[in-house]
């Protein structure tokens, strides 16, 4: 269906269901319960899950398929964001032209950087991409401030021309981004069922649709001759050359495609929240998408999305748990025990979320070399073994899974 075989189509359905039902899935706890701290179903975080999912899917097309480890992919996300905000400043507040432009600009930027960087391979390639991205970041933060607004980040002002819209709204404030005239990105609808509440937000669903599109395209690419060539590049470049294939355009195309994915993510980010900061281009941001991809499972279809969700969940949920919250949870215990438990957990939550994340990275890499996807497969295998007993080799036709 839609050019996907049955297995891929099922996977696509699962992703679609997850994306569309996210407001339910991510808010499993009643709003006033102590565990509501773990709810992630508010628009901003849901948008982030999806946007970084797109970013990681794109990165995976380059890294997962060709094995070229780019350490500067955040630059494309940053460039995408800047272009989108400039569209909002100059043109108007509709997000679609902004997203379109951010994809195009990021693609051109990727073409430029990729053309130079892909002259080298292995770690030399990684360092070239890193160098380009760090240069972009450093310049965006300082010399290029007229274009990027430096430290503060590029934001909208009342003086922007916005030739297809208005500089200011009737009540004198900055207009907000919209999908269609009258349909604001931030509009939301609350569904309250008993003690639960679920938020449906226009921006999120826009992002989710783009995620589905991005995911669908990535499945098609993975299963296409082009995708097979990319995997062949990773496997044996020498043989590629002596088979009459020019690897450079293949890798460059992959680089540009994944740069456009990053640009799409950047454009969406700016559409959800019209601000573009230089930190988006820093090497740590590039490192983050590498971590997401490897953590989820590089070269798999669904892995990058899982990895992105995993890291963003930690960043946003764990960093907000403070001692106060802990005391609230363990209040039922006798005082001494309560304090003891809070003291034990304290280093790992709130300001210690980096520590927890670092430990989890290590555990995942040590015990699940294939990332979270491998973890999932192992669990699935355990169940299958219990129910069927033998058959475990089913994946031969899809080595990329």
């Amino acid at each position, binding site marked *: 269906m839609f050019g996907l075989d049955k297995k891929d189509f099922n996977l696509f359905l699962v992703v679609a269901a997850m994306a569309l039902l996210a407001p339910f899935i991510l808010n499993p706890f009643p709003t006033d319960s102590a565990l509501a701290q773990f709810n992630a179903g508010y628009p901003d975080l849901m948008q982030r899950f999806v946007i970084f999912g797109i970013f990681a899917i794109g990165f995976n097309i380059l*890294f997962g398929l060709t*094995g070229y*480890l780019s350490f500067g992919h955040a630059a494309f996300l940053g460039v995408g964001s800047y272009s989108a905000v400039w569209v909002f400043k100059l043109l108007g507040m509709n997000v679609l032209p902004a997203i379109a432009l951010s994809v195009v600009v990021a693609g051109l930027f990727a073409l430029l950087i990729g053309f*130079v960087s892909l*002259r*080298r*391979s*292995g*770690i*030399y390639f990684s*360092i*070239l991409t*890193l*160098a*380009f991205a*760090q*240069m972009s970041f*450093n*310049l965006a*933060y*300082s*010399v290029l401030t007229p274009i990027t607004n430096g430290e503060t980040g590029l934001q909208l002002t009342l003086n922007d021309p916005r030739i297809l819209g208005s500089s200011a709204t009737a009540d004198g404030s900055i207009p907000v981004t919209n999908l269609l005239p009258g349909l604001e990105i931030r509009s939301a609808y609350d569904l309250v069922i008993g003690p639960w509440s679920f938020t449906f937000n226009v921006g999120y669903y826009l992002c989710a649709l783009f995620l589905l599109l991005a995911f669908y395209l990535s499945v098609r690419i993975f299963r296409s001759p082009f995708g097979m060539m990319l995997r062949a590049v990773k496997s044996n*470049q020498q043989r590629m050359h002596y088979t009459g294939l020019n690897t450079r355009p293949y890798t460059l195309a992959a680089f540009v495609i994944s740069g456009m994915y990053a640009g799409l993510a950047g454009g969406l980010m700016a559409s959800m929240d019209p601000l573009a900061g230089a930190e988006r281009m820093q*090497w740590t941001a590039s*490192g983050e998408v*590498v*971590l997401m991809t*490897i*953590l989820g499972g*590089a070269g798999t279809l669904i892995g990058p999305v899982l990895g992105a969700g995993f890291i963003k969940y930690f960043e946003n949920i764990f960093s907000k748990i403070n001692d106060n919250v802990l005391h609230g949870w363990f209040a039922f215990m006798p005082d001494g025990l309560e304090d003891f438990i809070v003291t034990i957990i304290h*280093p790992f939550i709130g300001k*210690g979320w*980096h*520590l927890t*994340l*670092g*430990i*989890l*990275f*290590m555990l995942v*890499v*040590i015990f699940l*070399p294939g990332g979270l996807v491998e973890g999932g497969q192992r669990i699935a295998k355990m169940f299958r073994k219990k129910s069927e007993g033998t058959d475990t080799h089913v994946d031969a036709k899809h080595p990329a899974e």
Partner: protein
Amino acid sequence: MDAIILQILNGLDKGSAYALIALGLTLIFGTLGVVNFAHGALFMIGAFCAVTVQRILTLSYEVVDETQTDFLGNPLKVKVPYVESWFGPETGAAIIDWAVPLAILFAIPIMIAIGFIMERGLIKHFYKRPHADQILVTFGLAIVLQEVIKYFYGANPIPTGAPDVFRGSFDFGVLLGFDPNAIIYPYWRLVYFSFAALIIGGVFAFLQFTTFGMVVRAGMADRETVGLLGINIDRRFTIMFGLAAAVAGLAGVMYAPINSPNYHMGMDFLVLSFVVVVVGGMGSLPGAVLAGFLLGILESFASMNEVKSILPGIDQIIIYLVAIIILLTRPRGLMGRKGVMED
């Protein structure tokens, strides 16, 4: 002219730090084939060895001084370091003053031990894994190490002064016939440079002239063959890891007085030192040292006002720009070997 000499000095000094870290990275990479993203963290731990020694030496007991009050109006509790009460105030103060050099003795066994534990406990299991996995696991380790340090020492930089005799700066200009104050350079930075030169020389001599070093070099060139000769190359590599950790740690100890150590200094150096290693050429020790000094000097020149007025912002990007140019003109960096980390 004096400005150029000054920047060369600066460059050599910056280059010393880059070269020391890059040297350790290359030792680990060249011998074990492991990309160690936790190497910056080892440098940081070295610096915190200095902090720790200073803390230990200033361990104090409190004496209540009724004549003074603290900020809340209570009688002031004056802290008296134990060393001062044991050895008398003057000797005690002198010992505290020499905390950083003393920390060298403390850091060597600690860093070697950390190196051994890291190699045996973690890195060993990653020899056969893809480089991406190595990067991820060592990056995770780096985060864990720096967060642990942050938990115990806080996020702020901690001042760790050099001994008093090294305060102030040396006037080179007078020696060379310039005006006084034309070329001055801090004593401690000169110490740092000499120390770095000593360590770099020591490592090369060790690899060049000892049997152990020769075996390791042979192993770097062709691990399988050396293994076939019945030499336990693994154990030697473990020792090399300890050595590399010690080099990074010592670089950190001596760096503490130059810039107050903080928990993220390792990450600050990590990216730069990787650029240095790659520009030098993966797996080449002389390359790493050469690239370290080269980039240090170029960075210093780029920060001169005369240069910045022609190319605004050049000091922001010089290292990366040079890295790009070198990698494009010399495919494997300055002195890299063919086929190393190219796929």
